[in-house]
């Protein structure tokens, strides 16, 4: 007879079976049994975040760096509802996390008990799947199923809600060794021979093709295959925000990011193209601009693991529901070498025009956000660090000026645009990244104040992360829109900050302030040398804009360009 175990013990046993080493969370009344059980399993390290949102972002950051499932825990009611933003963030960016929440006892469910919320109801639209486990005998299989669903197919967040009496109930624990077999879930989609043939014919006939590389190239592990196709066919590549790092920034075929704040040359290439190869991306409104005029003369091939993304926003000529790596392996042997010099030269001319406008070249003595970020890149590039950026102007400037050469080195909230993501996600990323790889946070003065409580988590874990606050005294991206589209009426966008150096000191964090560009190197060196969290405040020009910019709803080629110097 198998050993009797409590539900709480089964939770931890199953996490260990899944290879979980670190859990981010917060205890409370309804998950006390799980936390109590954890004390008997030293294999699992628990990180006490200061808010459950932080726990989900940390699990998300861990998942994005490692490709493994991140785990977050919270108690019932407010603990669980605090997770919602983090879960929605992971859903939009296809990040595999498993959230385990305590729930009031099964007998009390539905009775408005203390700290009761319908958590499976609340999280239904923002999870890939969720469970309410009402029988301890279902627990082990459910946890295994949850991890399987989170990491396979298009990854995403899965939540398991476990009532307190189920955590305390005992049953024979036999770990389900059989592979998961679900009737309605078949993540391994394949391309048909006819689809591959049609796509190949379009690729080999194209004169002006462009590869649009999204997060899927990283999630599928297809970065090598994408590059192989590009090199073989001399096809230029542009990436989405989350595709950054998938293709080395310095590669001559990489045009950089596309979309609203993308490279002008990349957007122009998309609009002029005769073939778009959309790989693991979803034609978000931030990358297409106005759909009616989007890349009007191109044939379009779309490959995605999620069939519901095909023909959702942009109508395509060949829609392939398959794992990108598998399908590109099928393709690549038959992609013909082609002379696309004329096309590449046209793109080079557009790029040349952009580089003349580059704000980095300005030498007027004003310390700019872009320069601070550029200098962080120059200082850290040999280490290929993980950069966790937040949401706003600094995020777009990071995407433009920080040259990522390696996959999984940019962690950012793309789809949901969750301010406050970066600090907790960096704490998670620190646990996932190799010891020698540095973790840098690039964050605005608005974003940092949303989750600044997690500084103490970083201190408690002696987390070796370096936080660069780009302080322009505004909610800069919103202010930019007010500046351009609301006649400079700055409604509630000026924002005060605390004295970050004193604040850092109060938390026990090394704090530094930089107000002139020439002082950046000394501060960055001090941060790097310090064992434990460091914080550098860069006080930068207040009214800088992020260019180029495609106004919302405008044609992709109707960019507001940087003024020429």
């Amino acid at each position, binding site marked *: 007879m198998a050993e009797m175990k409590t539900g709480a013990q089964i939770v931890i046993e199953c996490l260990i079976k899944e290879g979980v080493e670190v859990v981010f969370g917060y205890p409370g009344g309804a998950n006390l049994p799980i936390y109590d059980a954890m004390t008997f399993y030293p294999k699992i390290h628990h990180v006490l975040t200061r808010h459950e949102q932080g726990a989900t972002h940390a699990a998300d950051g861990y998942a994005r760096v490692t490709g493994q499932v991140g785990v977050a825990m919270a108690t019932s009611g407010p603990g669980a509802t605090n997770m919602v933003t983090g879960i929605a963030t992971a859903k939009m960016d296809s990040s595999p996390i498993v959230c385990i929440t305590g729930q009031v006892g099964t007998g009390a469910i539905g009775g408005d008990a203390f700290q009761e919320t319908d958590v499976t109801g609340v999280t239904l639209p923002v999870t890939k799947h969720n469970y*309410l486990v009402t*029988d301890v*005998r279902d627990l082990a299989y459910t946890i295994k199923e949850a991890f399987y669903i989170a990491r396979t197919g298009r990854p995403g967040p899965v939540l398991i809600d476990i009532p307190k009496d189920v955590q305390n109930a005992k049953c*024979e624990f*036999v770990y389900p060794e059989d592979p998961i077999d*679900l*009737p*309605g879930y078949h993540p391994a989609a394949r391309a048909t021979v006819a689809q591959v043939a049609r796509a190949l014919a379009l690729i080999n006939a194209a004169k002006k093709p462009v590869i649009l590389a999204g997060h899927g190239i990283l999630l599928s592990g297809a970065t090598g295959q994408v590059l192989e196709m590009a090199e073989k066919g001399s096809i230029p590549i542009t990436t989405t925000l989350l595709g950054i790092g998938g293709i080395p920034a310095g590669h001559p075929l990489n045009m950089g990011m596309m979309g609203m704040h993308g490279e002008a040359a990349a957007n122009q290439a998309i609009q002029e193209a005769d073939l778009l190869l959309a790989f693991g991306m979803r034609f978000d409104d931030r990358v297409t601009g106005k759909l009616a005029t989007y890349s009007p003369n191109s044939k379009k091939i779309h490959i995605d693991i999620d069939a519901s993304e*095909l023909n959702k926003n942009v109508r395509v000529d060949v829609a392939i529901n398959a794992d990108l790596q598998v399908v590109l392996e099928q393709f690549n042997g038959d992609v013909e070498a082609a002379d696309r010099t004329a096309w590449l030269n046209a793109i080079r001319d557009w790029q040349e025009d952009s580089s003349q406008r580059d704000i980095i070249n300005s030498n007027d003595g004003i310390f700019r956000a872009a320069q601070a970020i550029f200098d962080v890149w120059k200082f850290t590039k040999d280490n290929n660090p993980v950069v966790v950026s937040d949401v706003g102007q600094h995020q777009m400037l990071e995407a433009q000026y920080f040259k990522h050469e390696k996959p999984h080195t940019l962690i950012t909230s793309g789809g949901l645009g969750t301010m406050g993501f970066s600090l907790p996600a960096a704490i998670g990323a620190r646990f996932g990244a190799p010891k020698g790889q540095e973790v840098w946070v690039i964050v605005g003065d608005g974003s940092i104040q949303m989750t600044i409580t997690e500084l103490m988590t970083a201190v408690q874990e002696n987390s070796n992360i370096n936080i660069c606050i780009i302080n322009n005294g505004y909610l800069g991206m919103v202010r930019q829109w007010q500046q351009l589209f609301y006649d400079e009426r700055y409604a509630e966008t000026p924002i005060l900050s605390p004295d970050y150096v004193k604040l850092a000191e109060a938390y026990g964090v090394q704090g530094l302030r930089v107000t002139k560009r020439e002082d950046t190197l000394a501060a960055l060196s001090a941060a790097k040398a310090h064992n434990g969290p460091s914080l550098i405040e860069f006080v930068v020009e207040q009214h800088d804009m992020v260019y180029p910019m495609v106004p919302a709803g405008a044609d992709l080629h109707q960019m507001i360009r940087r003024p020429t110097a």
Partner: protein
Amino acid sequence: MKQTLIALVEDKPGVLNRVASLFRRRNFNIESLAVGHSETPGISRMTIVTDEEELLRRNVVRENLFRLINVIEVDDVTDQPTVVRETALIKVRANATKRAEIMNIADIYRARIVDVATESLIVEITGDADKINSMTDLLKPFGIIETARTGALAMTRGTVTPRDPASYAKYAAGNGKRSH
């Protein structure tokens, strides 16, 4: 032609909620939805009619539905030969003098009188939406007191069917994975 979908789903708590939530958040419109047991224990069958007509949009709806973990199979039968049926109960104002006239209309539509009272009767009719609407129009002048209608049920004609529901029986039985 409005989109008609047949979905086989796991008979578990909350599955109807998942389907309804999906349609709401994706901004797809449900014209009607009917759910009940299928021939396989543990598997429920849904017939969903949406207002989408164009093929690519219909595919997006179908794929979104199929993406739900508890949804096992989705067929878009819009373009297939299909039997579609709704049932309605219509309570009509009818005293002794009007009764025969109403029963005559019911006969024409092969509907049945299932309740008679001194001042009203209930007509039960089964058919497609057009047939029910048409009879409803004829009954209106008598005074309709209340109407209850099911959603559409759909089944493709003939024995050729792209799916084999029996193959899901193992899941219905728990597949031996769950301990109870």
